[in-house]
């Protein structure tokens, strides 16, 4: 007696098809070695009595679910003449894998594509003729529900059965299956023999820490608390070092450089001392804070806590069209926006990638941090300093969330969110030093490239034409400031600050250097001079603008490269400029209105 087995993935309408073919003649069969009952029916096909067996639906021949074991056992112990493989047309892209697995084992096959009507409605068209040629087996579209295409299936089955002399050889199929399974089995055997894995991981430490840090209600407050303490630590430890270094660099100039350049022409000493030295020294004083910052960042990154942050924040991020990974990238952006934007490569869907890229430039990077530390030190009382900086971090998050919410409909996210949670690792001292020094090198390389050129240009603009008094309205810088005055006056930014803002477009490291050059001062003298010219409301407005508008040329170039879209790059620039102006305007005008 000939034997045909019906095989397919679950929920493809296999039982419907079986019932349609077998009529009422189905009975529960008893098969060697199989404890589960299989339905079988005897039908008349091309003059033969043929036994039709309904095998359970499976996803994968190599799986270990009960159904998959049953099918595997059946095929390796019972010879068959033909397999009728039933796939769901609407999911053919995924389900073909099962067919190919079976084909590789050498089974004679008729492929029936069910739910042809549904596929048609979904706009899926399958060229059965060319698919049939490519697979070298009959392919027929059917509707098991309505019986369409059924006669064709039976006809194709009859033809194959009549040609086919021998049944399949279960032993050779078992052998082939085994070969395919070999890698998986070998892996399992190796692990079983040489590796001991407890049923539940007994890494108690990670579990204990997670119990607290991933706590339903305490997790998020603890995370933000930890971040606040870390930034506070950087500030309290770093600020005195920065002040000390600035003082030393000032002393170096007064004691050594001023006498050295005393005999040189006025323009040369101006360029070298008021220009390059003042500018570079002011920026250089911040290097210790940056080093400290990156050391702490790399410790947090390597510890495994960032993936936990993704876990805690995902539900909130999902409401903004982002996911937990976007949040991690935003946090990375607090170090430097450029690697954070490149980090979005782990995302596959373009929509969520673009949305994340639009958001990252708003995170308060270390370059902006030095501008804020500098200005806060100059214009805020020490007891208000921490609060002012904290407000800027809050503002950074706020603008990121606002941007995501406003643009989430443009960039609809369909990306699945799956992430591995590594065990907590305490980074070794060597790791911290390596990571830290790498970041610092990157920063210095970036800074030195732009700063020297930048401060020279600022010096030129604010000292020429030579007839004008330095930094006055008659200089080129003054004229540029006047030109932008209608735009910048309403947000309280005077023409000195305007020049710094324009150069900050290239890199934020230039901003403090530019201020030093524009005022022709350095260290405490510079801070005192600024405090006499602008008040804290203007300073805050300036910092808000600096926080929100385009971070630097490198970030723009990275956005262009990663998005491969010039239009998207311009969108990012235009949006951040507009948002920066609006936020500064609202802050400045309402502060003034309230009488500050």
């Amino acid at each position: 007696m000939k034997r045909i087995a019906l095989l397919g993935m679950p929920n493809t309408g296999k039982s419907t098809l079986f019932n349609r073919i077998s009529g009422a003649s189905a009975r529960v069969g008893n098969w060697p070695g199989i404890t589960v009952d299989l339905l079988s029916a005897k039908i008349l096909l091309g003059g033969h009595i043929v036994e039709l067996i309904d095998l359970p639906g499976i996803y994968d021949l190599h799986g270990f679910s009960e159904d998959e074991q049953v099918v595997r056992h059946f095929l390796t112990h019972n010879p068959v003449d033909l397999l009728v493989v039933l796939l769901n047309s609407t999911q053919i892209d995924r389900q073909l894998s099962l067919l190919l697995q079976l084909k590789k084992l050498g089974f004679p096959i008729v492929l029936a594509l069910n739910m042809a009507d549904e596929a048609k409605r979904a706009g899926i068209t399958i060229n059965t003729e060319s698919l049939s040629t490519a697979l070298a087996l009959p392919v027929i579209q059917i509707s098991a529900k309505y019986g369409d295409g059924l006669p064709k299936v039976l006809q194709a089955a009859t033809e194959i059965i009549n040609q086919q002399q021998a049944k399949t050889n279960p032993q050779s199929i078992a052998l082939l299956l085994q070969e395919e399974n070999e890698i998986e089995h070998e892996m399992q055997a190796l692990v079983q023999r040489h590796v001991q894995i407890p049923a539940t991981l007994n890494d108690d430490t990670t579990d204990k820490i997670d119990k607290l840090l991933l706590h339903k209600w305490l997790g998020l407050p603890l995370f933000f608390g930890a971040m606040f303490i870390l930034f506070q630590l950087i500030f309290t430890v770093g600020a005195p070092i920065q002040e000390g270094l600035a003082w030393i660099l000032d002393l170096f100039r007064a004691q050594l450089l001023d006498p050295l350049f005393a005999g040189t022409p006025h323009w040369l000493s101006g360029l070298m001392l008021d220009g390059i030295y003042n500018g570079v020294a002011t920026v250089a004083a911040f290097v210790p804070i940056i080093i400290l910052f990156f050391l702490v960042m790399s410790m947090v990154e390597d510890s495994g806590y960032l993936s936990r942050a993704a876990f805690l924040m995902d539900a909130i991020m999902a409401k903004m069209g982002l996911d937990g990974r976007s949040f991690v990238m935003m946090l990375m952006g607090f170090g430097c926006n450029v690697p954070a934007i490149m980090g979005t490569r782990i995302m596959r869907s373009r929509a969520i990638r673009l949305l994340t890229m639009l958001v990252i430039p708003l995170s308060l990077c270390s370059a902006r941090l030095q501008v804020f530390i500098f200005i806060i030190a100059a214009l805020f009382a020490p007891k208000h300093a921490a609060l002012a900086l904290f407000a800027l971090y809050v503002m950074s998050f706020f603008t990121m969330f606002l941007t995501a919410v406003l643009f989430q409909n443009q960039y609809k996210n369909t990306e699945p969110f799956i992430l591995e949670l590594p065990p907590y690792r305490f980074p070794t001292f060597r790791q911290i030093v390596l990571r830290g020094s790498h970041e610092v090198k990157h920063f210095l390389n970036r800074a030195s490239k732009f700063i020297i050129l930048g401060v020279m240009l600022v010096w030129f603009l604010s000292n020429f034409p030579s007839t004008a008094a330095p930094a006055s309205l008659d200089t080129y810088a003054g004229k540029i400031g006047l030109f932008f005055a209608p735009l910048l006056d309403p947000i309280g930014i005077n023409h000195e600050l305007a020049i710094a803002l324009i150069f900050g477009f290239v890199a934020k490291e230039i901003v403090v250097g530019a201020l030093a050059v524009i005022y022709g001062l350095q260290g405490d003298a510079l801070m005192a001079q600024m405090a006499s010219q602008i008040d804290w409301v203007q300073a805050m407005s300036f910092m808000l603008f600096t926080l929100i508008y385009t971070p630097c040329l490198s970030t723009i170039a990275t956005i262009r490269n990663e998005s491969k879209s010039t239009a998207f790059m311009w969108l990012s620039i235009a949006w951040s400029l507009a948002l920066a102006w609006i936020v500064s305007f609202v802050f400045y005008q309402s502060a003034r209105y309230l009488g500050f």
Partner: protein
Amino acid sequence: MQFLSQLKAGQRAIISAIEADEFLFHRLSALGFRVGRPLSIMRQANFGGPIQVRLGTTDVILRASEAQRIHINAI
């Protein structure tokens, strides 16, 4: 039929099937989601956030929408 998304924290189960497109399927299998493997639910984040699943030595977090694609038998 039960889905991974229906399990509560502390429950254990065996994966019976994975229903996902090719990308998700490969990602899942790379992280250890294979048919027949046991797993346990560690916790779920607040506000309907992701669930944390432990497979052997690997901890994975995934959203409920992805967990819905994983069929399981609770044990």
